[in-house]
């Protein structure tokens, strides 16, 4: 069984960000530079030569090759790329695409596929925990329950947007495990709650899954007591 992941997913939200002309100008250049660097490195390795040897072939110095093989280097020019391609017996292809065509690729979700949570992780979260039916992303969820070992009733507010719980009487931090997507109202996830009792320094790590019907609904938590020797200091 795969270990349960507690770190939070990253949503690049490229479809939205690429609507901004200034952002996409920089993003397209960043992607192009990273791709050129990767292709140059792959080509040079395939030819079995090092940077110094390649520099000698095109009449430059090794640091110039090192620079152009950096993903964040944006001052390359076609003449240099042609010289490298000629020296290493390769072809340079330049493709110029209208932004609207490129955006269409992102609208079709092709960028999402690359960043989707691996199915095995989603399945594992599903098997380990009941399903959360989440309200809108960014909404506060109220979880209520008595944490094992503590006599009083604890209430935690968890904000899905940050995935980090507001510090309250009972909860120091919380992480959403699983996928969050504004386009999909149903989210399968688990929760990890790091709890403290009555503001004391005693800490207790618990994990749990929950079923939420809608925002503000009282939750039912299935909790697991963490081992005593793993209790994190607060």
């Amino acid at each position, binding site marked *: 069984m795969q270990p349960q992941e507690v770190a939070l997913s990253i949503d690049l939200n490229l479809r939205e960000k690429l609507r901004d002309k200034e952002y996409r100008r920089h993003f397209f250049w960043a992607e192009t530079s990273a791709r050129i660097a990767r292709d140059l490195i792959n080509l040079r390795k395939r030819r079995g030569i090092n940077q110094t040897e390649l520099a000698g072939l095109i009449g430059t110095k090794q640091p110039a090759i090192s620079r152009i093989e950096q993903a964040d280097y944006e001052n390359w020019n076609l003449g240099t790329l042609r010289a490298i391609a000629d020296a290493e017996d390769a072809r340079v292809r330049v493709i110029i695409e209208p932004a609207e065509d490129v955006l269409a690729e992102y609208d079709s979700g092709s960028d999402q596929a690359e960043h989707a949570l*691996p199915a095995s992780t989603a399945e594992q979260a599903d098997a380990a925990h009941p399903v959360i039916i989440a309200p809108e992303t960014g909404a506060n969820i109220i979880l209520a329950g008595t944490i094992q070992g503590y006599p009083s009733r604890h209430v935690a507010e968890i904000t899905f947007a940050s995935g980090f719980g507001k510090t309250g009487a009972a909860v120091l931090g919380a992480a959403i495990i699983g996928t969050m997507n504004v386009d999909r109202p149903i989210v399968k996830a688990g929760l990890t709650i790091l709890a403290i009792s009555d503001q004391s320094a005693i800490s207790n790590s618990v994990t749990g899954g929950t079923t939420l019907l809608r925002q503000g609904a009282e939750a039912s938590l299935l909790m697991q007591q963490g081992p005593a020797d793993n209790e994190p200091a607060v």
Partner: protein
Amino acid sequence: MAHDVRHWPGTVYPGEVDRECPEAKPLIDTLIRRLTADGPSPDGYRVKTLGANMGGLWQINLKVRRRQVRVLYAPYGQTIVLFRIHRKGSPEEQDRAYELAKTRKHEYELIKRAANATPGSRSIH
């Protein structure tokens, strides 16, 4: 094989990028895509493994408009966790960034270990 890039805590991305180095966002986004596609050491990036005394952190430096932006992270199998993204400043600021990243990594590993313990469980309402 695709990697799963995540962050801990939930304030690293986009929070720290927006706050400390918004001009680097397109490059950070590209880096995250490359980490996802190629793993923790993608070609073309200056990757450093910082060693045990730095908590086992990995580091990538990006140059953005003559300023350096630093990404501190660690791989865990197919998962890559980002712990700190900041603009490189004075040596004191860099030390603080390393310390924060180390603390976050330690906290993440503690919580992950606790979440993967196999004790008994009970339902509460």
